[in-house]
């Protein structure tokens, strides 16, 4: 009895087990509710874009729709294909959803207590875990023993390989400024610097956003579940609760992609002038920091939804083209040019000074002139130079300038007007 008590009240247990456990439970509750309402938001946003109302029947403005959907999903029959691999079929959606949720652990939702844990390889952890998550899609498609899910799974594996690379490489640029892989430290660096890395790294942000859409399998990159082509893609054979797990994973991934983008490029929970509150009202500051983070994330999620309801879908080979011929060269160019800009700014011009950060790490903070230099270089040199490199690489590819190319390719009009004599 005493032993149990000692284990429970052990400060180490307290720090590493009980406190995180409570935060995890709270976070899970919030995130799962949030995901349910993201589906509602998606339907409302799509309705808004498509000149209709969206869910209106269940509760005021359809606000209880997610609850009704949940009940419906839980009551549905759970079908398993006769010749499918039962064990893997059951395991695959769990894998997808667990990988999506685990990533939440390292995301700084706000200042102080709002972060479950801060590990110094935060970004690497996120990238590796979310790669495993797509394995859930592949396994699910394969275990269904059906052709449409198999095609969906094949597409998703190809997509994973191409876009994970671009996504990871896009993050290297801002990391060169933050000089840390820890999510908290990245936010801290931007806060101390009074800058958002979006201003230093416009190309990387754009690529990360596009890769994020591709990673979450949303239009225009929703090939694994392209409704018109593959019925429902990898989850064609799934029903009821298992299907809802995939759904949950998809929306959680969208949340995570936005959260990473906010953390790395948009300053995380920091906001100009908000820091003044910290010494006197730490509680209020924490709350406000969470709010700031949430607003930023929802703005990005709205952009994701906007994409989905405006764009047509890429074809499989075009998706590969975009990944390998546009995005990956662009990220590599971005890394190279950013490195050069930093070297020149830091070593040659001496525009930065080194200070200690809040977490004891070494921060390289540029002064006002340094900031102007970095921002100016990013928008006046980095963006045009990357575009030129891309244009050089792709000038011969068919999708470089479709309209111009079309006019070149078939100039003469076939003289068929008088074939039928009349007209």
């Amino acid at each position, binding site marked *: 009895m005493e032993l149990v008590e000692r284990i429970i009240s052990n400060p180490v247990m307290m720090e590493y087990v009980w406190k995180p456990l409570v935060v995890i439970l709270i976070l899970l509750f919030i995130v799962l509710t949030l995901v349910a309402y993201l589906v509602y938001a998606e339907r409302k946003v799509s309705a808004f874009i498509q*000149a209709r109302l969206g869910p209106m029947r269940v509760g005021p403005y359809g606000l209880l729709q997610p609850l009704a959907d949940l009940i419906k999903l839980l009551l549905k029959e759970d079908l398993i294909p006769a010749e499918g691999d039962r064990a893997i079929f059951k395991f695959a959606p769990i894998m997808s959803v667990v990988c999506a949720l685990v990533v939440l652990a390292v995301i700084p939702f706000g200042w102080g207590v709002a972060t479950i844990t801060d590990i110094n390889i935060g970004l690497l952890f996120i990238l590796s875990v979310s790669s495993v998550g797509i394995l859930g899609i592949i396994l699910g498609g394969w275990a269904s023993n059906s052709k449409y899910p198999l095609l969906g799974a094949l597409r998703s594996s190809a997509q994973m390989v191409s876009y994970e690379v671009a996504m990871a490489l896009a993050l290297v640029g801002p990391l060169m400024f933050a000089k840390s892989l820890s999510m908290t430290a990245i936010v801290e660096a931007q806060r101390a610097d009074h800058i958002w890395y979006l201003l230093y790294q416009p190309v990387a942000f754009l690529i990360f956003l596009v890769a994020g859409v591709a990673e979450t399998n949303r239009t225009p990159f929703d090939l694994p579940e392209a409704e018109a082509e593959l019925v429902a893609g990898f989850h064609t054979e799934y029903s009821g609760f298992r299907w809802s797990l995939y759904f949950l994973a998809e929306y959680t991934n969208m949340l995570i992609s936005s959260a990473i983008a906010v953390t790395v490029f948009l300053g995380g929970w920091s906001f100009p002038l908000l820091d003044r509150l910290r010494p006197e009202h730490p509680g209020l500051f924490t709350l406000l920091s969470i709010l700031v983070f949430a607003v930023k994330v929802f703005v990005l999620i709205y952009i994701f939804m906007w994409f989905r309801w405006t764009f047509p879908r890429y074809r499989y080979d075009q998706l590969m083209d975009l990944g390998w011929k546009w995005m990956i060269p662009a990220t590599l160019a971005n890394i190279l040019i950013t490195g050069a800009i930093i070297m020149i700014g830091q070593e040659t011009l001496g525009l930065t000074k080194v200070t200690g950060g809040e977490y004891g790490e070494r921060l390289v903070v540029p002064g006002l002139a340094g900031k102007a230099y970095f921002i100016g270089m990013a928008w006046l040199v980095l963006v045009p130079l990357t575009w030129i490199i891309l244009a050089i690489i792709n000038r011969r590819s068919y*999708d470089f300038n*479709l309209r111009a190319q079309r006019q070149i390719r*078939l100039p003469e009009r076939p003289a068929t007007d008088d074939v039928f004599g009349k007209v």
Partner: protein
Amino acid sequence: MYQRDLGATEKGSPGIREMVLNMGPQHPATHGVLRIILKLDGETVVDLDCDIGYLHRGVEKICENRPYTHIEPYFDRLDYVAGVSNNLAYIEAVEKLAGIEVPPRAQYIRVILTELQRIASHLLWLGTHAMDIGAVTIFLYAFREREEVLNIFENYFGARLTTNALRIGGLFYDTYPGFEEQVRAFCRIFPERLNEYETILNENRIWLGRTVGVGVLTAEEAKDLSVTGPVLRGSGVKWDIRKAFPYEVYDELDWEVPVGENGDTYDRYLVRMEEMRQSRHIILQALDRLPQGPILGKVPKMIRPPAGEVYHSIESPKGELGVYLVSNGTSFPERLRIRPPSQINLQALRKMAIGHMVADVIALIGSIDIVLGEVDR
């Protein structure tokens, strides 16, 4: 453009692992109960075969056992998204065979109605075609405008889809009060809405990527396959029954036949968009010239056309809709044969799709614009 040259890798040669994928009859993108048997190498279509007949009702045989007037509603149910046009094809064939004169007012109203129907049918095509390619929002925009047309039909005939609008020798009803204003109001907003769709699609990089160079049908191939309608015109052949063998009052009106140049999915899309504009133009002209007068010519109580045969075709939204009618002098037709544009255009699918990918097959089905009610009859 991705289109694999399959000449190098002959069917059955070592190294190719083909998969047979059965697309349909229950599939969201086959526009009904079309079954396509695809032979795939990876995602590339090596071969495909369309299996039709899931919606076969034997309309032609049924028609042999019905009086001429009872056949009219069966035609609405062929291409059920263009009921008025189908009705017109049959009724004109009977009128031609029996030598019935149609008063000018009825002819003008028929033109207005068929052109409205063409717009409605093309809007449905636009919506489903864009949705197949992934642009879901266009679907609802197109339905919003289609709804306006269907409202006009509902006010006129009391039905929206299978209207049974016309009658041998003229029309059932004269226009309702406010018909002209409602049609004009629709024509006023319509170009603006069309521009709205084109803003989303015409210059969209993804849309261009998915349609330019996909499913190219040269003019020669198109004529060999005897495709008609926008599919033929997309390939650069200026052929429209309304111009070639004018029926009703089309020869009195001023309008253009839009043609494409490259015969790909994008050109077929452009042709249909332009056709909607031309239809609006025709409607406005017909409204301006709409004469007063009777709406029904001299029609005998029991229609007994003299023994003989007639082939009459009209330009339905899908292409040339022909009716071949043989009369033996009784009130029942001896034989009735329908030339369905969808079915004949569907034959071009194999030619278009081989070498492309699965996703392109979907785009091509939408681009041909089939309605299974008409394909299977």
